[in-house]
């Protein structure tokens, strides 16, 4: 779960990381009064879960509350990398003397959290990593022990020789770890961590991605979720035990298992078709789940054919078949359907489908080819 900047800054503040005292607003009028309250100049920043807001015109420095109103008015409703801007953060403008980078994420290979720090902040850090890797310093963190003060100092003294700044930065690093660990994040990032002209250190931007697996420990964080319409669809799907991602193609896919779902999409593409979505109905599928899955697929107007690919393992073919029959009884649709079904209780499943008038195939590639053919026909009709 990705947080927006204002949410991440709120969490940073709770963990003692210095951030500007900004105000989140949703209208131009609110932006004007926020600018009055904070005292200008202020920065008006689009709140979207995407990078490159500045380049897209989503961040504006303004000198008066009236300008804040105008800036907000122009940014709200903007479309940045397919995210519609609905919220703004009005932050006090500051005098920056230097921009740095600090972040923590999980290193999958080392199986450990790792802190990264660089004196080359304020820019695309992945570019820095790719082009001048020597400018990024790493510190592995033993999660049982946490980031230790000496480790943070070692990193910080690589950014600053000045004691006061190094120790202030080390302190921010320690708090950033506390935050990462405390909220079970997958990623926390300060870019830029700014040195101001008065010598203080402050987080000018904030990025947090939470570990969805850990939300059970932090139920209150679930309330921070601000889904876009397409994310809302994915969330609704998840609440029914389905993993769904909408794509641009015309063949709706329903598969049990993420790996098999990707293989199914790949084979559709390999044969010249385009998948309309990723949809994993998971293990131990109940008929209800299949009904919800079917509803999801037919609600996408791009879908011209549906390919259901089930390998019965824990998921029993008869369960999927029953669910499908129930779904098709409930949902009136003209969209042509291809079912491939094999594995646990496959005869039973195929019989149920056959009784309903659907012939199930046993081979995945054959099924994909048939779905592409039907989608092509549908496109012509």
């Amino acid at each position, binding site marked *: 779960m990705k947080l927006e900047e204002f949410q991440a800054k709120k969490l940073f503040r709770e963990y003692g990381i210095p951030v500007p005292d900004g105000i989140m607003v949703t209208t131009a009028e609110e932006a004007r009064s926020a600018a009055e309250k904070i005292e200008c100049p202020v920065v008006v920043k689009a709140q979207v879960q995407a990078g490159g807001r500045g380049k897209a015109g989503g961040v504006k420095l303004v000198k008066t509350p009236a300008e804040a109103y105008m800036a907000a008015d122009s940014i709200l409703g903007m479309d940045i990398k397919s995210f519609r801007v609905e919220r703004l953060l009005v932050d006090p403008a500051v005098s920056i003397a230097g921009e740095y980078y600090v972040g923590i994420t999980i290193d999958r290979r080392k199986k450990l959290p790792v802190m990264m720090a660089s004196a080359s902040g304020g820019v695309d850090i992945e570019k820095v990593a790719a082009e001048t890797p020597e400018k990024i310093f790493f510190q592995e963190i033993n999660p049982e022990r946490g980031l230790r003060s000496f480790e943070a100092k070692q990193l910080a003294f690589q950014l600053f020789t000045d004691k006061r700044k190094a120790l202030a930065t080390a302190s921010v690093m320690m708090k950033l770890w506390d935050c990462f660990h405390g909220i079970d994040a997958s990623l926390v990032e300060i870019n830029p961590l700014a040195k101001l002209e008065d010598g203080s250190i402050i987080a000018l931007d904030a990025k947090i991605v939470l570990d969805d697996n850990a939300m059970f420990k932090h139920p209150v964080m679930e309330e921070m979720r601000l889904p876009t319409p397409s994310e809302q669809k994915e969330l609704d799907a998840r609440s029914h035990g389905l993993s769904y991602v909408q794509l641009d193609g015309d063949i709706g896919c329903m598969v049990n298992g993420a790996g098999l779902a990707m293989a199914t999409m790949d084979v559709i593409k390999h044969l010249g078709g385009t998948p309309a979505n*990723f949809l994993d109905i998971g293990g131990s599928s109940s008929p209800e789940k299949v009904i919800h899955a079917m509803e999801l697929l037919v609600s996408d107007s791009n879908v011209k054919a549906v390919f259901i690919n089930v390998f019965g393992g824990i998921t029993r073919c008869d369960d999927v078949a029953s669910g499908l029959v129930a779904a098709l009884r409930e949902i009136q649709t003209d969209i042509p359907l291809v079912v491939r079904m094999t594995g646990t209780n496959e005869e039973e499943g195929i019989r149920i489908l056959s009784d309903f008038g659907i012939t199930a195939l046993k081979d995945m590639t054959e099924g994909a080819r048939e779905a592409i053919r039907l989608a092509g026909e549908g496109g012509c009709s």
Partner: protein
Amino acid sequence: MSILIDKNTRVMVQGLGRDGSFHAEQMKEYGTNIVAGVHPGKGGSSIHGFPVFNTAEDAARETDPECSVIFVPAPFAADAILAGANAGVKLVVAVTEGIPVLDMSKIVIELNELGTCLAGPNCPGLISPDKSKVGIMPGGIFKRGSVGVISRSGTLTYEVVNQLSLAGYGQSTAIGMGGDPVVGMKYNDYLELFEEDRETELVVIVGEIGGTDEQDAASFVKDRISKPVVGYVVGRSAPPGKRMGHAGAIISGADSTVEAKVAFLREKDIPVADTVEQIIDLVGDRLGGRN
């Protein structure tokens, strides 16, 4: 021969709720040597013919298991893995999906200290056909033979195995290593075991987008593995930055794409299939036709 488990392996089942109990029965039917179950509050009872204990320590003291399989729900699964490992088993298979990644990072440290191997979490487990099944794989599609299978996926493993079996290529051991960002053993750990296993003649590795495990495996194969290895990587159609169900399947950098992985594998002289059918062809090229 096979790796990690065979018909003598003494298995303990942690978590005997609906799923755990169902799969314990399935494993038992398959022939797995289940010696104990663990479920707080069910201590002293007996399920499917094996004794149940309140704690893993009690179970281990009484029945001396070598392997434990975890069906405990996510919020309690990290603790159960540690309980199993601290009770002294040498292999923990964590089927549970949804364990927080930081908890897994801590678990990996402790299990390394204890010298306990971990398969998973969020994995279908492993199977040595006709000998032992530890996890949730559908036993019927597996066939005893000489192909080792290592996969990050669940049902895709079944798809691959099913076609291998139908084509006459049985398996020595098949493993779903789990799709989470932090898992216990990875391709390389299993490859090393397959290299030493006399029954295994070839290994199929099934990968997906996200991370760089497949590249690590390719380098390892090039340097250390003498047996033929065949690759297959899925997720070409996955849009960048989108979760594809597996938390691990996030395209986090250029190296994590299917294209990058396939190119790297081929660079290390590992043939890569584009479809499941091609896997069979590539295996056949190396082992000779068997149907």
